[in-house]
């Protein structure tokens, strides 16, 4: 079993390795006016999302962070998690009411 130092070190290694590989690639950028459109005349635009879907996806992500916190505290329900859960719940209730 390892401690926090090894976790931070491992994540730093993978992040630096990924960044190095990414910056090794061709950095030349080109901007185009038109997106790929399979021969159709589709302008460059963003389409509207269905907001509830995004809301639920973000909710999943946030709950996952709570799980991460629980996992890192070895399954103990510490005050940090409690505070996090309360803040998150309040934010989501406010967002949902809006």
């Amino acid at each position, binding site marked *: 079993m390892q401690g926090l130092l090894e976790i931070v070190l491992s994540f730093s290694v993978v992040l630096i390795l990924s960044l190095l*590989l990414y910056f090794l690639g*061709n950095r030349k*950028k080109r901007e185009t006016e038109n997106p790929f459109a399979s021969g159709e005349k589709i302008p*460059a635009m963003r389409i509207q999302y269905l907001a509830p*879907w995004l809301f639920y996806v973000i909710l999943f992500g946030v709950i*996952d962070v709570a799980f991460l916190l629980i*996992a*890192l505290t070895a399954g103990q329900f510490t005050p940090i998690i409690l505070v996090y859960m309360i803040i998150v719940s309040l934010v989501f209730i406010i967002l949902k009411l809006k």
Partner: protein
Amino acid sequence: MEYLLYSIIFSVSAILVAFFLEWFDRKVYARIQHRVGPKITGPHGVLQPIADFIKLLTKEDCLVKGSDTLLLDMGPVLSVAFVLFSLFFIPFGYSEGLLSIPGDLIIIIVLSSFVAVMILLTGYAQKSAYANVGAARWAELFISFEIPFVISLASITVASRSITISEIISWQAHNLPLIVIAPIALVTFIFSSLAKLEKTPFDIPEAETEIAAGWMVELSGRKLAFFRLTKDLEYLLLSALGAVIFLGGPIGPSLPGLELIFGIIWMAIKTIIFALVFSILRGLVARYRIDQAIHLFWHKVIPLTFFQLIIIVMLGLFGFI
């Protein structure tokens, strides 16, 4: 210092193994379709994924004006980092991974969800209707497959009474492999993993014939190379995770003094078995529509996972496990 060196060696090896698995997947898929698959670069084309990766890295980065460049730069790097980091928790020889902490199974679940969010943001960051539709489809699929994925793993943790991978392996060493106790969880795990990997029949977010390449349509050069690498690493992660939680990972008959070598061999065989299952399923079935996929997950797969969980709890209550 020694740990740092191990981390670097492990990361590079994981990337190379992921490329190997991509080659394996392409070969199996090609054989199912009576094709040869990659055959030119390296012996039997084994170096083709590496060649593809290098080629994409050297290509120019082409973007539609108005796209969110920060998100598009962040997404590929963080996705690769998250999946690569998850692999640190998988034991590839010993019963513990390079990193082993209490609750590491949950960390893998969380990191894989972060990758999903990165994909969603990447699709949204592009100023293209196809990419946006792909991202929206991914969001819909994500909230359908994530629940059975987590509950199938929950069945395993309830059976082995642990959320730590090394303890799950040790439980299987002293009892039965969890594939015997939780066969339904295995099926639902495979379904959810196929969706997570965007492999047929769940390649809906990047369906070539419908929305070009979906959320990846405007990606090119190093961004595309990184997302392809992310998918390869996820393929390795999910195959290895399946091997560990259902088949006991590195557990198997070995000779005294050669436990590590035999551990690596057993783990490799079991990982390949899972990779083979994913590839064969990909080659045999046709793509679902998004509504069919959502219906399948919510009406069939999720009830099945709950059924499995109830069975495991009952077995535990009556003292069978």
